[in-house]
Structures are given as C-alpha cells and as structure tokens.
C-alpha cells in the first residue's frame, strides 16, 4: 500500500489538494463529464492481478476440502488469512503499478460471449454481440476499493481465527469457506470489467452473506435473518438486473470502457426508448444499490443480519459488502449525471433517501439496547450519509467516508464482538457496565473509544473530516432542498455522537456489573457456556486473546492514521491519494459540476470551513449529553425515560423508536402477509379452478356423457336386452326409412 500511495501521489501532484476544499477541475463536455480514458488491455504487466480473485477461491476450495477431511485444527483460518493477505499484497502491488489516468483491463477467461452476424442488419457492430467476460477493470475506484476490502478482510479473518475457535471442526471450515467466498465475490464485484461480472459479485456477496448470517443455523432467528437478507437483496438485485438490461438495450454493451466512452460522447441511448435510458437506468441502479447498502425501503435486513457471528457483521455488514451500493452508484455515476443533465431527479432522490435513512436509523439506534443492533443501525445511518454524498455529487466525500467508516465501524463491531465473546454472548447494554476496570480489557476499551470518537465525528477524527466533506456539499450543490437536507445531516451527526457514546459509556464506565446472556450462551456458545456459564454469579468473563487485541490495535492505528493523513500531504497523505483515485474514475466525472469558488456560502463562511464548526459543535453536544445521561448521572437518564413514558402526548416517541418505527411490522402487514394470502388464494385457485374445473372438468365431460347411458348398464340382463333391442330397432328403422323408403 505504501508503494501504491507513493507512486500515485507522485504521479498526481496537481491533484494533491490536502485540506483544500476546492474541486478545480476543467469543465467537461457533454453532461459535464471528465474526459474518460479508454481502458488499456494489459495482460502482461498485470498478470498477477488475477490472483486477487483466485486466492480467495483457492482458500474456499481448500476449506471445503478440510471440511470433507474433517480437519479439526486452525488450518482453515490460517489458509484463509494467508490467502487474503496474499490477495491484499497483490492488490497493493497491482495498484502501485497502476496509473489512475489510464484504466487497465485484464482478461481472465471467456464467460458469456455471444455474437451474431445476421439480423436485419441496420445496427452498428456493438449490438451484434453480448460480451461479458471474466475480466478485471482496474482504475482508481476499483483500486481504492480493493485495497481496503482485502486489508479489512485479512484483519477480520485473523480476528475470527480466535473468535470462532469454539467451533473448530466443520463449522470452522464452513465459516472460513464463507469468508473466502465473500472475498472472492467482493473482489469480483469491485474489479469486474462489466456489469454482468459486477452482478456476479453482487449476488455472490449476497450468497456469502446468506451463508454467514445463517452460520448458527440451528437458531431459527439466524435462518430467518439470512433468508430476509437474501430476499431483500434480491429485490435490489432485480433493480440492478433491469438496469443492466436497459443499459444493454440502449448502449449495446455492458463493458465499462465502452459504456463510459459512449456516455462521454453524449450518447443518451440508442433504442426507441430514448427517454427511458436517461430516466430509468439510474433509478433501477439506485434500487439495486439501496438493497445492497440497506437504504430506506430495503434496510430492514441489516439489523437482523446481526444474528451472524460478529466478524461477519464487521466484515460484511459494516465494512465491505454494504458499501457495494456506494460502489455501484459511484461506478455508474455517469448515468446519474446524464439523468441530472437531462433534468432528471435521480441524484436528488439518492441524496434525500440517504439523508432520511440516516436520520431514521439514527433515531432507532438511540433507543436500542442490543449493542450490535445499535451498531447496525449506525451502519445504516452512515451508509445514508454516503448516499447523501453521492447524491450531492461529492463522490469523493462519499468514497472517503466509505473508507473511514470501514475502519472505525469494523473496529466498533470487533470490539462489540470481543465484549460479546468475553461475556457469554451478552449484548444488552443494560446488563453490562464498567468493563474498563476489569483487567485485560484495556485494549478493547481504548479501541472502542477510538471507534466511537471517529464515528461521532469529534473534531480531528477521520470521521469528522469525511462527514464534513459530505455535509458541506449540501450547502454547495444545487438541488431540491439540499440546504434542509444538510441540516438533517447535521442533526443526525449530533444524534450519532449521542448513541455512540451511550453505548461506550454504558459498557465501559460506571460500576462494574455483568451477566451472560442465557439463550445465546447455551445456543451458539455451547462449549463455552458449559464451562463458564452454568450459574450467572459464577460467570467469569475472559479477556480477549492476543490475536483479537492485535487486530483491534492495528485497526485503531489505521483509523488514527486516516485522521493524521488528512493533515499531511505527499506520501503519507490519505486524502490526496484518495481524491486522485476517485477523480480519475467514473465516479469523479461529476465533481466539476461545482467549480471552485463559485459556490454559495454558509453564515458567510466557505461551507467547508463553516461545517468544521457546526458539525463539530453538534458532535460535542451529543457526546456531552451522552456523558451526562449515561456516565455522570445515570439516574437522569432513567428520569428522562420515565418522564417521556409518563406523558401520553410524547410516550409514543420512545416506544416507536424502540420498536424501530414499526417498519418490520408494517412490511409484514402490507407486503408479506397480503402476498401470503394471495399465494394461498392462487394455490386454491390452481387446485379448484385450473385443475378442478378446468382440467378435471374437461375430463369429466366424457364421463358425464357416459353417465347419461349408464342406467342402461345396470347389470340386469333384461336391461341389456332392452338396449340391444332398441339398437336393433334403430338399425331396422334406418334400413326401412333410408334404404327402403329413401328418406326419413
């Protein structure tokens, strides 16, 4: 990573803006695009890059083999960690070789490759084939993403090697196979050269998420959560798939290079659905992104996904997978910009949905007691910020926040995991306290403090800078109600500080008390509980081991480095490097919409400057309130709660917040249950009408006709004789009337 940063930073001195908030880019041609560079197909110098994908696959296969062989050691974990670390190293090498100004395509092998020559033949060549091969597209955006994905993946796998130790055996293999599959899918998603490969990764991470959330498959809640996650994601995938179809219909290609070239030349699509291309494509992609990144209509799966093991929550549901939606929109930003240029409102919708989700999730997080759920809602909220950033056209801010969030949220989750691990699965912040004073928990306490500070956006932290990047943009970009949205974001920042520190203060300060969680202890930590958790008062927490502490330390240092890197330039400067990477990718094309120096001011200051103070203040206020209520004077918190519950006019508020605004219930009542009823009705319809009346009814017609004559066949000899004689009479009648008389 060092060399990568060094290389690119030197190559792009002009981009090094440091703390500079201006986006001084030249005004582009159509839709205000930056001039895209057609990708270079380079398979020689980037031959190694393929191993970024193949190493996780190899590790997944090996884990499968271990499972089949019944390996009981930590071998799967070390295999996975080695593979992921290898992947990270290769990513670093690759990125260091990469010139962001010229994207590179590395072709791995043919996948879907169809071509035809006939047809009515009026079209250009591009429509005479559908090519979606296994190939890597390396540019700034994917380089940026792959670096932190593989790094965090390695770290978290390392952490999990200790965390999952109780399950050594098949479960251990299964877990690490899942992690490897996830990393494979994520790299495919990020590095995919075309939308279909992106889709492969997209669904692949869904699969991995499904398998890992359902890791404790004996718990019905975990199974249900896994299913919910996959299906919710599938709803989003539908949007993505439709977006892909529409893109192909309009542009005749699914390869990023071709698409960006077409968009850059001002093409708004080719088919007769001209209007649709610009209007619908962004909306479809948006739906996909919202599903994967847990935004408003589709966010409900993420908190439930906390049923999975904590490393999974950290890796998939905080740091990496959920940012895939951000990646998608950043990657396809040209479509959104085209939409904006043609008068569409897709970007504004992204911003607004992101902002509102941020607020909604923050309010829910304030009232939760399960610390992992607090963190989950916090993730939803922070993802909302990122979408807001994308919608406000600061893809740099959004991507920057992705990185910082990945670090501090992974850190927070891993700390939560450590706590949960040490305290018999206890996650309720009411039943834990004063852990700070228990020997061996210092690292966890400190790391969590770092994470909380960073999440809260306390001045000087990385989260502070990245969040300000987004919030300030709200006062810069032109759009429907963006100013108001900015204030929502600022309010949310205050709430974030409050709920984050509510957790921290509750767990780590105050009088020391704890008890293990009953069902959890017996269920998923069976061996553990058998040793330690038979009696609550006999319960002794065990402090995290070396590996967990190491990972927490590394991640804390990373987070700190991200903050420091803001102030330094050149080699160690993070912001400049990131900005350079983003600017040269498809995500950066929109930034020059807001030329430097022309944007409005906030309270007479330049918005970025003003935002430092405003959001800093809000963050500190939130922290102070949390300190007052949850550390200094906990009775006040109880009083406040009692006061709120006691007043009828306001009592609904805490209750609704605790119940997550009843969104799950509303979904069940308005979608799931009616759909179930419809399904039952259709099944009934199928049996009664289609099969019963339609098919059996038709089949019964001959039977009905036969039943008319059935009385003749009553088994009585004379009955048969009667019909025989009747038939004879008819024959004779026919002979007499037709043959002899010649007419009837």
């Amino acid at each position, binding site marked *: 990573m060092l060399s990568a940063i060094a290389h690119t930073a030197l190559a792009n001195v002009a981009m090094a803006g440091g703390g500079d908030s201006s986006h001084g880019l030249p005004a582009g041609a159509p839709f205000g695009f930056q001039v895209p560079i057609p990708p270079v197909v380079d398979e020689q110098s980037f031959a190694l890059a393929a191993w970024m994908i193949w190493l996780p696959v190899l590790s997944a296969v090996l884990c499968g083999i271990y499972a089949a062989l019944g390996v009981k050691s930590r071998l799967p974990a070390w295999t996975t960690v080695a593979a992921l670390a290898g992947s990270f190293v290769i990513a670093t090498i690759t990125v260091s070789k990469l010139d962001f100004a010229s994207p590179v395509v590395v072709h791995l092998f043919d996948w879907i490759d169809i071509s035809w020559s006939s047809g009515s033949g009026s079209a250009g060549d591009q429509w005479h084939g559908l090519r979606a091969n296994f190939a890597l597209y390396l540019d700034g955006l994917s380089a940026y993403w792959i670096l932190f994905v593989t790094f965090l993946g390695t770290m978290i796998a390392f952490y999990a090697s200790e965390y999952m130790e109780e399950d050594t055996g098949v479960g251990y293999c299964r877990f690490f196979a899942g992690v490897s599959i996830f990393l494979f899918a994520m790299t495919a998603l990020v590095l995919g050269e075309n939308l279909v490969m992106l889709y492969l990764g997209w669904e692949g991470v869904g699969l991995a998420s499904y398998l890992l959330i359902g890791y404790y498959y004996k718990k019905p809640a975990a199974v249900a959560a896994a299913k919910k996650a996959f299906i919710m994601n599938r709803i989003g995938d539908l949007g993505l798939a439709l977006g892909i179809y529409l893109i192909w219909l309009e542009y005749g290609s699914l390869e990023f290079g071709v698409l960006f070239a077409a968009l850059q030349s001002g093409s708004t699509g080719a088919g007769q659905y001209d209007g649709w291309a610009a209007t619908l494509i962004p909306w479809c992609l948006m739906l996909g992104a919202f599903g994967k990144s847990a935004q408003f209509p589709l966010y409900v799966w993420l908190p439930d996904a906390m049923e999975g093991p904590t490393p999974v929550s950290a890796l998939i549901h905080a740091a990496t997978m959920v940012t895939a939606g951000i990646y998608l929109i950043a990657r396809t930003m040209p479509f959104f910009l085209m939409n904006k240029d043609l008068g569409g409102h897709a970007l504004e919708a992204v911003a607004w949905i992101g902002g509102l989700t941020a607020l909604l999730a923050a309010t829910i997080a304030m009232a939760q007691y399960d610390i992992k759920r607090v963190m989950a809602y916090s993730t939803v909220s922070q993802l909302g910020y990122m979408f807001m950033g994308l919608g406000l056209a600061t893809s740099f801010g959004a991507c920057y926040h992705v990185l910082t969030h990945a670090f501090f949220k992974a850190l927070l989750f891993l700390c939560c995991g450590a706590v949960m691990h040490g305290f018999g699965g206890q996650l309720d912040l009411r039943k834990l306290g004063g852990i700070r004073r228990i020997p061996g928990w210092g690292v966890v306490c400190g790391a969590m403090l770092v994470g909380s500070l960073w999440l809260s956006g306390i001045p000087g932290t990385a989260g502070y800078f990245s969040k300000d990047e987004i919030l300030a943009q709200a006062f810069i970009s032109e759009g429907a109600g963006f100013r108001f949205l900015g204030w929502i974001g600022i309010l949310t920042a205050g709430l974030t500080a409050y709920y984050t520190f509510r957790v921290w203060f509750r767990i780590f300060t105050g009088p020391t008390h704890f008890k293990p969680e009953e069902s959890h202890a017996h269920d998923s930590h069976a061996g553990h509980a058998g040793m330690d958790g038979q009696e609550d008062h006999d319960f002794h927490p065990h402090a995290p081991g070396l590996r967990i502490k190491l990972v927490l330390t590394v991640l804390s240092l990373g987070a700190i480095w991200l903050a420091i890197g803001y102030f330094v330039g050149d080699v160690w400067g993070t912001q400049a490097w990131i900005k350079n990477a983003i600017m040269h990718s498809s995500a950066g094309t929109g930034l020059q919409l807001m030329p430097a120096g022309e944007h409005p001011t906030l309270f007479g200051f330049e918005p970025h400057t003003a935002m430092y103070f405003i959001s800093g203040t809000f963050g500190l206020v939130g922290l102070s309130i949390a300190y007052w209520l949850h550390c200094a004077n906990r009775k006040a918190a109880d009083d406040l709660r009692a006061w709120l519950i006691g007043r009828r006019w306001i009592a609904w508020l805490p209750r609704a917040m605790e119940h997550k605004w009843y969104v799950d219930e509303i979904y069940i009542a308005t979608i799931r249950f009616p759909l179930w009823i419809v399904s039952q009705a259709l099944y009934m319809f199928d049996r009664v009408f289609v099969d019963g009346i339609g098919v059996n009814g038709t089949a019964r017609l001959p039977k009905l006709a036969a039943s008319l004559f059935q009385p003749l066949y009553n088994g009585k000899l004379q009955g048969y004789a*009667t019909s025989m004689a009747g038939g004879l*009479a008819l024959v004779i*009648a026919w002979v007499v009337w037709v043959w*002899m008389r010649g007419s009837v």
Partner: protein
Amino acid sequence: MTPSILYTACVVGAIGLYLIMRPHRKATRIVGTIAGAGALAFIMVKVLEGLDADAPVPILEIIFGLAAITGAARMVTHPRPVFAAIYFVVVVVSSAGMFLLMDAEFMAFSLIIVYAGAILITYLFVLMLAQDATSTAGEALYDRIPREPVAALVVGFVLLAILSDAFLLVDGGVRPDAPGMTPSLASVEEDRWMVLDGLPLQLKETVADLIESDSTDTTPAAFTIERVDGRAIRFDGTNASVDVKIADESRNIVLPVSAMPTNAQLVGWSLVATFPVSLEVAGVILLMAMFGAVVLARRQIDLGEDELRVAAGMPPLLEDEESDFAGGSS
C-alpha cells in the same frame, strides 16, 4: 294409410298393453284391452280397406291372428306363470291354424306336437318344480310387477311400428303381385316336377299307375323310364311328361297334376337336397343341447367362499384391489 296413422295406432297399442300390464286393476285392464284391440282392429281394417274391392276378406286368418295375439298379450301380462304357459298353448294352436291356412299342414302339426306336446310340457314341468313358496300361495311379486315396462314397450312398439311400416306401407306393402314376388307358375311347377324327378321310386310308381290305368292289361307290363341327361320328366310349360319304354316301345306319358309331390315331400326334399349341412348342424345342435342339459342337470353347485359367507350371514371378504400394484416407491 299413412305412416303417421300406423305409428299412432302403435302408440295406442303400446298404451293398451301397458294398461293391461298393470296388476290387479281390472278397470285399467279392460281399458287397455279395448285400446289394444281397437288399435289392432283399426290397422286390420285399414289394411283391408287398401285392398281391391273384390278381393276376398281373409276372415279365417283374422280370427286365428286375433286369437294368437290375444293369447300372446295375455301370456306376457298374466301374473301367474302357469296360466301364462297355458295361454302360450293358445298362441301355438292359433299359429298352427295359420300354418294350415297357408298350406303348411306338415309344419302345423309338427308345431303342435313339438311345442304343445314337448316343449311346453317341459316348461310347465320346470315351472312346477321351481315354484317357490309364495307363488304356490298366490302370485310371486316378481310375476306381478313388470320391470321397466315403459322402456320395453317403447323398444318393442318402435320395432313393431317399423316392421309393420315395412310390411304394410313401404312400396305399398308386401304384395304378392309385385314383380318378382311370386315366381311364374310354370317355373314353380317345373321345380316341383323336378322334385318328383329326384324321387325315382315314387316316379316309377306313379308311372306304373298311369300305365296301368291306361292299359287294359291286367298284368302290368315291365317298363323302363328313359332318362336324358339324367332327367326323366320333361316339362314343356303346361304339361309334364315321361318317356317310358315298354317292351321296346317308347311311349310318352303325360303326368297329371295330382302326381305332383305333396307339401311334406317338398319340405323333405328341400331339407335334404338344399340344406343338407344345415340339417346336420341342426342335428348337432340338438345333440349338444341334450348333452348340455344332461351336464347341467347333473352339476353340483360349488359355492364360492364369499357366497358361503353370505349364506352364513357373514360379510364377504373384501377384495384387495391394490395387491397387483404393491410395488411402492420405497
């Protein structure tokens, strides 16, 4: 007479028979009798009306026919089997009468002998044998109540309507004077003479009688009948004659009409000369029937297990209808 009139009469007749069938209702039986007889009479009158004015009325046929029909109707409606059998005798006798009227005297008498004498007696015998307790006291229920009379009457009288339509109405009905119906008398006569030709002994006797009556000699002369191509009788359209050689002297003797073979002879000749195989088959049938009757009568009844159970008042065993398909997927 048009078909509609005929069909209407058939319907009336059917209704009449239906009414007669109703058990123990004298009034309806009378009404039915009147209706049936009326319909029959009506049709007969209509038939006779359609004839030439000077044609003789076949009064005897009508009498015998009415008797036969009355007997038949009573036979199928009478509630007591024995009486029904006796009414059948009426039918047989009346039919024999009609046979006689149609110059089938041999058949008439054999009918009476075979039917009334043999078959019917057997029937009566079995009737007596098989009468169950109820019928000795009165009439068995199943003898009193006809089964599905309406369907049977519809079928029967539709058949009747069509048959009588074919006999009476189509192309003016069955008419002997229609072309091809009655063969020319010459050919009939020739056929019959040829029968006599096939009976050499009788022919010789006849010729001998004729020669004897012609000649004055008391001692019959020895003669031989000359045959040309195996035929002795030559028929020239009006007269049949035989060439006879008496003492080297040829004579042509004309055969009188009375020398024609009788009805019984004709039947017998036809039987052996035209239908020999059928005759043999008939014999075999009779033989087989005899064997069959013997076998049937000697047969011991082996009741099946279910029937024994039923007879013992137990439920029959259920048949396992799945037994053939008992493979099963697993």
